[in-house]
């Protein structure tokens, strides 16, 4: 299986792509950058989801 890298667009969109020039170069020249180690750690689909922190309220 090919290695994948997490890329982030100038608008903050995240995309995991094949670590091959054919996939990386078109993104890189459009301002996408590789996620930092910290950003990779936080790349769970639910990262930053405030609903996970909300305490259920009684009706």
């Amino acid at each position: 299986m090919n290695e994948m890298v997490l890329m982030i667009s100038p608008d903050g969109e995240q995309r995991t792509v094949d670590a091959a020039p054919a996939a990386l170069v078109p993104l890189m020249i459009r301002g996408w950058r590789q996620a930092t180690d910290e950003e990779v750690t936080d790349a769970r689909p639910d990262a930053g989801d405030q609903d996970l922190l909300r305490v259920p309220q009684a009706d």
Partner: protein
Amino acid sequence: MPVRMQEIRICFGFRKQTDIGTPNSAANMWQLRKLNPQFANPRLNTENDALEYGKGHEFAVQSFATAWETAGTLEKYLTAEFAAWAMAFGLGKVVKSGTSPNFTYTCTPLIPANGDPDEPPYFSLVEQIRPGANAVLDRLMVGCAVNSWTLQVSKGPGRDNAKLSVEFLGSGKYVEPSSITMPSPTVEKLIMSASLALSVHGTDYVASKRIVSLEAGWNNNLMRDYYPGSGFQSSGDPTSGAIAGRLLLGNRQATLRFVALFEAGAQELTRLRNQSTGTAVISLSHNTNNSLELTFHKVAFASVEVGETDGFVTVAAECTPMWDDTNGVLSAVAKCNVDNIGQ
């Protein structure tokens, strides 16, 4: 006591500085050899008051330190490690993948219009000769950036036939003594010209045994920016001379030229006349884990001249690297066994 030039040792950041004014730590630097003897001398520019009126004569009575600049050249035989460093710092944008022993650095030029920085990554460079209490030379240049690199590949059996030269500029800030304990020399993987693969517009110049020499390059045309407030060599001391607060990317240029044996059916003149475009791919390797591949994504022939090299009819072609809508001008894929280059 005279000092031989071979005593000079240099080390420089393989990781980028956090900003232009914060030097690399020794842990983020590597010691490599070089071929050229030039020093990266911090140069102080000065002015005087000779042209000012009111002195009664045309001679200077006072001089002023104005600004510092540093610059230098690293000329080396082509190695996987230095190639990865030159591409990462020279082009500016890097995606790292792979693991030891196969770290892969995919590099492209920064595109500020698409949100990338308009400054290159910075590194620090140390020059030392007999460091210690009685050092001959021991200084650290801060805020250096790759201005240009040139890859030269030519015909012949020796190391001299594949070289990579880097010219760099610095902010002018330096520290003396450096306080850096130089790391052990990095063992580099040599890449020789015999490993070349070259395809231009789909023509394989190695399979046909036509290639004689080639030169590929990149120039950032960096501009030292002494903007108001850029700072002084000694913080807050205007008599110590200004330093550049940033190095701005100028009008960047990619270059590609090559000489090949000319024979019946050679397409270079036709491609010049038609101004057809295509890719140019240069590959060189030490082994599968240590290599360099440059791709010029769209080139046209700017000039083609039939001439002579060592008694044989040759064609000297100069290409114009152009912007390709999908892949830009140039990309580099460099592989080696050193982690975090340009990170």
